[in-house]
């Protein structure tokens, strides 16, 4: 290491620069500047808002770098991946390491290091594919990905990061031994959230808990601090429960029938935000749709597939396909962003299933997000004015995963009096990300607070967004900051407008 004894003056020797050095051609095939993108490339789908007052993260930075992190299990799995759909080499090779994905990656925004970026995670996948084992380290970095797909929007080379991370997560879930607590917590989530009935049962005591302000009292007494941080995160996220209302199996259109559509009720949406479903169905009917919402429909499996629980997902998906088959629908409509992006990919996700592959693609092709569908259909029902400034928050699984940005904004702008405000750093995830805010509460909280600050800075009176997870997340952050703001799904806003309700019906909730 010590070079101080080397002579420094090149004039001491004859012609030292003629020497051959280490920059000759190298033949390692994986190291070419290659394929469909260029290191200097840019242009495609570049983000409009980029974090400016970016700061190094708070405590969450310790989740990812440095020795002695708490989650280590000492695992060493080699080879890292088995033969059942490892992340595809071809898709990995599409990445030319240009780095355009970095500034919109929420974990890069927080941590400012390479391993927690799409480029870095793909690099780790590539290494794990042929050289390196699966260890606590690379699993940690893959785990910390929110799956927001902002990188897919930003990538000029068309890298399909969504497929890569899903494949990797399935491998991790199958092969990596998580610590017992981690395993138990994940199991608890997946025994609860995808099952509306269980969720409803679990929510019943919650309602009492809220009615009597138990949470606030416990907070005051400092008892909450004794709970494990993940349980605390869950508690903080729980919404106030309203009376639940189910949507009818068939709803007739108002006026002339323009389409016959299926309606997916979701899980969290159905239990915690049943108003959104009712509003959606009323809007669809008002726009001339016959709405069919099969009684026996379960979870779409989005949470499972995003967490790498492949078999569990496939079970959910098959059942949902069965529930909607033979109904002769023009489209299948979903109002939750996270579910929608998975539903549209059913064909790819069930490609190995000889019995379901074709049916899954047929199903997936019919799926549309509700605002996407309404804009395609064109408005007929009269819109009454709603004079209010509303900040529209892009749910990642709507904007990045489905490319649906314009339609919900148009939906809102078609309402007279509506002042739609843009949120700074719109491309950056709010930290909700499915079950992420329960599994990784520290980074999620920092992202949530950042989003909440940006929302408050718009000066809007309410927030409108298309995903239940985002609502819970932003609400929790606002509460932590001692603020509050009414929230609504675009369909609740549109429903209020069509029904001619006063703007207070949205603001006083």
């Amino acid at each position: 290491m010590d070079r101080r004894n080397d002579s420094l003056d090149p004039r001491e020797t004859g012609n030292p620069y003629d020497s051959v050095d280490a920059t000759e051609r190298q033949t390692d095939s994986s190291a070419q500047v290659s394929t469909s993108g260029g290191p200097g490339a840019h242009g495609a789908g570049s983000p409009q808002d980029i974090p400016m007052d970016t700061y190094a993260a708070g405590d969450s930075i310790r989740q990812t770098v440095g020795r002695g992190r708490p989650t280590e299990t000492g695992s060493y799995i080699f080879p890292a991946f088995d033969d059942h759909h490892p992340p595809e080499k071809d898709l990995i090779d599409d990445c030319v390491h240009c780095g355009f994905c970095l500034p919109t990656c929420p974990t890069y925004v927080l941590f400012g290091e390479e391993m927690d970026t799409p480029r870095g995670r793909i690099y780790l996948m590539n290494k794990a594919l042929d050289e390196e084992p699966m260890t606590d380290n690379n699993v940690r970095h893959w785990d910390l990905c929110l799956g927001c797909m902002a990188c897919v929007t930003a990538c000029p080379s068309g890298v399909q990061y969504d497929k890569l991370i899903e494949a990797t997560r399935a491998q991790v879930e199958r092969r990596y031994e998580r610590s017992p607590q981690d395993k138990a917590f994940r199991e608890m989530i997946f025994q609860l959230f995808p099952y509306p009935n269980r969720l409803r049962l679990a929510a019943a005591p919650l309602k009492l808990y809220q009615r009597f302000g138990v949470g606030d009292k416990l907070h005051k007494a400092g008892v909450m601090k004794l709970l494990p941080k993940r349980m605390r995160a869950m508690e903080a996220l729980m919404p106030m429960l309203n009376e639940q209302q189910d949507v009818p199996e068939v709803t007739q259109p108002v006026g002339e029938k323009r389409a016959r559509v299926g309606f997916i009720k979701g899980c969290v949406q159905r239990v915690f935000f049943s108003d959104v479903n009712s509003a959606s169905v009323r809007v669809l009917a008002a726009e001339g749709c016959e709405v069919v919402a099969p009684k026996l429909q379960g979870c779409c499996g989005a949470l499972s597939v995003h967490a790498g629980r492949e078999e569990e997902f496939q079970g959910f998906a098959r059942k949902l396909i069965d529930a909607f088959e033979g109904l002769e629908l023009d489209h299948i409509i979903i109002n939750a962003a996270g579910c929608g992006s998975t539903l549209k990919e059913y064909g790819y996700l069930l490609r190995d299933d000889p019995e379901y592959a074709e049916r899954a693609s047929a199903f997936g092709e019919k799926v549309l997000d509700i605002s996407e569908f309404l804009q395609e259909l064109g408005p007929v029902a009269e819109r009454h004015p709603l004079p209010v400034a509303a900040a529209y928050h892009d749910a990642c699984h709507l904007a990045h995963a489905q490319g649906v940005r314009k339609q919900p904004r148009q939906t809102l702008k078609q309402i007279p009096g509506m002042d739609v405000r843009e949120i700074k750093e719109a491309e950056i995830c709010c930290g909700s990300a499915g079950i992420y805010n329960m599994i990784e509460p520290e980074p999620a909280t920092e992202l949530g607070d950042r989003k909440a600050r940006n929302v408050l800075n718009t000066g809007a009176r309410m927030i409108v967004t298309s995903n239940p997870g985002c609502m819970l997340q932003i609400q929790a952050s606002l509460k932590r900051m001692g603020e509050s703001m009414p929230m609504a799904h675009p369909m609740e806003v549109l429903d209020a407008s069509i029904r001619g309700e006063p703007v207070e019906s949205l603001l006083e909730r």
Partner: protein
Amino acid sequence: MEHDRLVRTMEAILGPEGVISEREQLRSYECDGLMNYRVIPELVVLPETAEHVQQIVKLCYDEGIPFVARGSGTGLSGGALPVESGVLIVLSRMRKILEVDIPNQRVVVEPGVLNMWVTNEVAEHGYYYAPDPASQLISSIGGNLAENSGGVHCLKYGFTTNHVMGAEIVLPDGTMVNVGGGKAPDAPGYELLGAFVGSEGTLGIATKITLRIVRKPESVRTLLAAFKDTEEAGGAVSGIIGAGIVPAAIEMMDSLCIEAVETAVHPGFPQAGAILIVELDGPKAEVESQFEQTVRICEENNASEIRIAEDDTERALFWKGRKASFAAMGRISNDYYVQDSVVPRTELGKVLKRISEIGEEHGMRVANVFHAGDGNLHPLVLYDNNVPGEAERAEDVAGEIVLTCLEHGGSLTGEHGIGVDKKKYMPKMFATEDLDTFQLLRCAFDPHQICNPGKVLPTPRLCGERPGPFRMHPVQKAGLAENF
């Protein structure tokens, strides 16, 4: 210093969250934007303040440990390639905009601040930061400074060096100095800032950078002109510049490039042997009169079609086509090898002709997209890595192109830097005495050769450094051993 003690010492400075020492994590840093060269560093450190940087560098100096600075890791010449048994100092956590001084048209930033953030920060006041490398969304100001980055609009506004007013620098011995940087534009004494900008991280690490911002032009007009071939388009370029017009940008694309771009982003470019995109900006009256002149010059050079952007949307579409051109190559070829040579504008026609001959001689396709105004070429040699031998042939073709450019009085690089990738060509461009002089300057800053060693200058034999590309050892290839 043995590894564990080094890790502990760094942890004492930065805390555990600022030190990366585990193998899988270190591998994420083994290359920058250029993946052809890879070296696993001994340690990666993530300082958050200038004082951190100073302490790290001082430690390296005292212990004789080589170090390399890295920003966003988007460089295309391997400038941030780590050194074996060295420390990689990553500045991506130093990303605060420290001061915005609109009346004096200056902004003070930390090195990890991204290029685009500077413009975003001052846009509301009607200003912007002029150097616009294609990677402006992600490349850091520290990296721009090290590489003296350019961009499509540098023809008129100059490179990074014209926009850096001062810097706080940690020298390779750990001393912290300020060069330039006062509110008054000029200072007596040696122009150290000029030596530092573009030194590719070999003279020290900038920890605070003062940038000049410029007023947004009153008017911008853009046209797209199609020509039979690159020679006629080149004639138009010479005509425009010769008429005393300084466009904000003149970009040329050849037919192969147009084809790729059309497939990828459908900007609706005309089918032609070459197209030019010319943008003028400035006071309205001046832009209007020069724009008419530009149109006339294009017509005189037999432009088959001239399109004038009617609004911002159309203008954006022209640029979308231009800026997507590298990415679009993937649509017509599996792989490509990009060069960054510069030739005198007057030699453009001859060099382009020779480039296409070289391609034909080797049976390879070469696409051209470049900053025509200042002769900065980006020839893209297309090849398929799955065909044995093609990668080597592509590199040969690229090498011949570089040498051709040098023969015509050109330079090795316009904006990507020499780094590790092009240093072997340095003796072709410079005499031994020139290189020795460079080396003397470098030794004055870095007497122990610990600051980004093995970059820019071809390594003199006596230095005993062994940086370079990753090569798999035969024993490793046979699966008998892990990395050595």
